[in-house]
């Protein structure tokens, strides 16, 4: 994460305001600013910038989805859900489905969350974070074989991720696969560095 990104967004916006028209329009610059603020953890400021964008173009589905996601981070799932409801399902994309999945989880609707995460993964199979979320929601529904398959797929791609392996070991234990769990726990407990 670089601290230069919000600064760059701000400079783009300022330059655009002061200078002659260029290839970067206002909306693009504001969107970049909002994203930069979001990535920097300045959630409230990011939300404000997204709302300005939507005020300009209420039909901007990409912005709507991004705002919905940030609103969720800001613990406003109801508002997030309200915004996503305005987006046609076909245009939700992977992010929209993932956010809907997270909202469903927040409401304790595990089956719905699983459905949304599955749709998100169908659109973005390489999104390992969503796959982890998917594996977790499967676990919480005690769908251990399916969850373990997701963990195995993730571990093939991230074999050195100790935290991922520990979570996998935990699920193996819950699934009653004690010997496999023991093996996985042991893999994560190599001798400590001096």
């Amino acid at each position: 994460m670089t601290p230069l990104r919000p600064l760059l967004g701000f400079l783009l916006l300022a330059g655009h305001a002061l200078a002659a028209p260029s290839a970067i329009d206002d909306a693009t610059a504001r969107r970049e600013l909002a994203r930069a603020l979001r990535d920097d953890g300045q959630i409230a400021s990011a939300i404000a910038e997204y709302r300005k964008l939507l005020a300009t173009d209420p039909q901007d589905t990409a912005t709507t989805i991004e705002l919905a996601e940030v609103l969720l981070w800001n613990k406003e799932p109801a508002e997030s859900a309200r915004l996503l409801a305005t987006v046609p399902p076909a245009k939700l994309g992977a992010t929209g489905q993932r956010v809907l999945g997270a909202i469903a989880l927040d409401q304790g609707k595990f089956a719905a969350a699983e459905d949304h995460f599955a749709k998100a993964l169908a659109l973005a199979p390489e999104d390992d974070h969503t796959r982890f979320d998917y594996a977790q929601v499967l676990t919480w529904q005690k769908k251990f074989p399916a969850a373990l398959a997701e963990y195995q797929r993730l571990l093939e791609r991230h074999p050195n991720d100790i935290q991922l392996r520990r979570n996998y070991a935990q699920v193996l234990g819950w699934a009653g696969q004690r010997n496999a769990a023991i093996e996985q726990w042991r893999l994560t407990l190599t001798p400590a560095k001096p």
Partner: protein
Amino acid sequence: MTGRLLAAFGCLILAPAFGSESLVPRAAWIDRDTARLALVDTLRAAGEMTAAENELRAGLREKPADTRLRLRLADLLASRGHAAGSRAEFDRALAGLPSADPAWLAYAARLDEWGEYRRAEQILRAAPSDRAHLRLLAATLAGAQQFEEAAAIQRQILLDHPGDTATRRDLETTLRQAGELPRLPNASSQAAPQNPSEARLQRANTLAAAGDLPGALAELEPLRRNDPEFLPAVLRRAELLAATRQFPAAFAELDAIDATMPGNTKAAFTRARALSWNRDYAASLAAYDAILAENPSDPTARLEKARVAAWAKRQSLSQRAYRALWDDPQANPRRREAARLEARAKQQAWDRHFLRATRTLRELTTLQAGNQEAWFDFAQSQAALGLTDRSAQAYDSLLTLDPLHRMAGVGRAQAAINARPAAIGSYWYWDEKGTGRLSDITRQRIRAGGEIPVDSRFYVRAFSESWIEQPDDGVESFFAQGFALEAGGAINEWLSASAHYAFKAYTDPALAPTNTGGADVSVNLDDYATLTLGYAREDEIHNRFSLFQGTQADNFALEARSVPLRQLELTTKFVLRRYTDANWQQDVKADIGILLLDHPHSLKLVFTGQYLNTEHQSIFLTDAAGQTTDVIHPYWTPRTYFRGLIGLEWRQDLARDFFAGAPRHYYGLVVRGGTDTTRNNSISFAAEYLIDLAERWTFQAQIGVERSPQWNGASAFSSLSYRF
């Protein structure tokens, strides 16, 4: 950009992953120590205890000061029953932790499991008086057989928390253990075993509860080799060995426990009890003193010490131990009252005041329905009063409380056998010579018959009898046949009666058949004295003349017997004898018995005085040659006669168990010497032997010899009986 699940179960929210090196959001991270503990738990769940222990030890090598890891190691060792190692780890981990820390509660629970009741109690009494601590304290006290104290705590918890069903169950369990509530058949409160050793121990406990003590021991045997550190099994094995009277092996196990777990309360109690069961009362009392030195207020140790002192016949020590319990204002009030009653009952039974002891024990068993000692003593008192059916019922009550109570089992089994019909054969021999020709006969009686018990406490007997009577040095023998009937028993605690009748017909037609018999009734005057009023018609056949005259006497007897103290026994008997030849005799006899040595090697000094006075003396009729042709009043007819005797009575009890109803085995020897108003110095010797064999057989033999210048006598008796 992608969201992450903020992983805390049930609290899901997308969160950005800022600079995370893992795919897993930080909230769902599992640190190294937690991972190690999870591995340990998984290994334990898989039964790989040694691997789990190794993992914890590896963790502790990395972080020796990690209390969490050390406590987990202590818990793991405890779950394997490896008490010594676990206790060391607990002690190290808990040093410095406040007494309110929940780990102390876990430690106390383990100490309770290992029978370290005293230490557990100390920890729990120092902890906050919250419900969890109080519940465990009550369980610990119940484990130490302090049921009154445990129930008091549980009742207090229920007063404060009436809806606490767990404590209500605990209280019910305590009351069942205390015998206040009936035991549940086949009830098992055993949790699922945590390891194979525990599973084996549970199987052994199940066998023991069913009375199969050898089976239980066999179940535990492999653990001696495979898991010798498993303390609960070692403790149980020691208990079972003691219960099966394998005392050397039991003490070897207890020595091993002492070597690794010095001060273990349960082991200390088991040793003290085993020593008492082995009748090593001095060592047992010393063992109780050692427990009391550690915890002077331990009510169980005080009570058991008082009981063992009573068994050891150290009555004053026993009474002092009871008094220490009932005088202690800190002790549970119900326990104090029970101790007072038990002490009183012990004293009354000691003084052989069984009627009073019965009343006290009835009061005690009402107060403490689960007091096994009281039920056992009640059974003894009832047996001493002749109420063998009620004695058996008391044994039944005791066996309901403790199916493994060995002595109750023996007593009950013997009572059941004694309630069955018996075949009896006996032989009696009597020879007397002296007092002129007035005593000159040898008599023999052979009996064969049977006994039918009625309601256990009454009996009816019938015999076929044969007599051989040989007056005048056996010059001539007279044979007779007949039968005898007997009946009797205890009507209640203070009244008993018996009656007998015999018919005898001689083969010589010159001798008339005889009828003899009588009855008596005994009344116990609240143990101050027992009065017996009786009547009996008896043959007075001491020589040829009385044989042919068919002399008999009606005996009107009144006897008073009193035992004011255990060491002193007084008996007085007055008999008014009316002979069938219009003669009367007064016979007054008094005995004073002083107990010099107590059971099982009892020695009694007995002083006897007797007064005889006969209305008409014998008249010898002679022929011209001076030969006696007949005698009027052909029996000994002393006038204003006094006799004094001093005797020593020795009796050694050789039985395996010393309680009423147990198989008997003893011998006795009596030596007496005396003189009388005719200056006829006498000396006599008697011996007796009795043994109950193979549960159903009883053999008894007696001999007696008396020598004096004027009279010599000899007698012998033997009988053999078999209960079907």
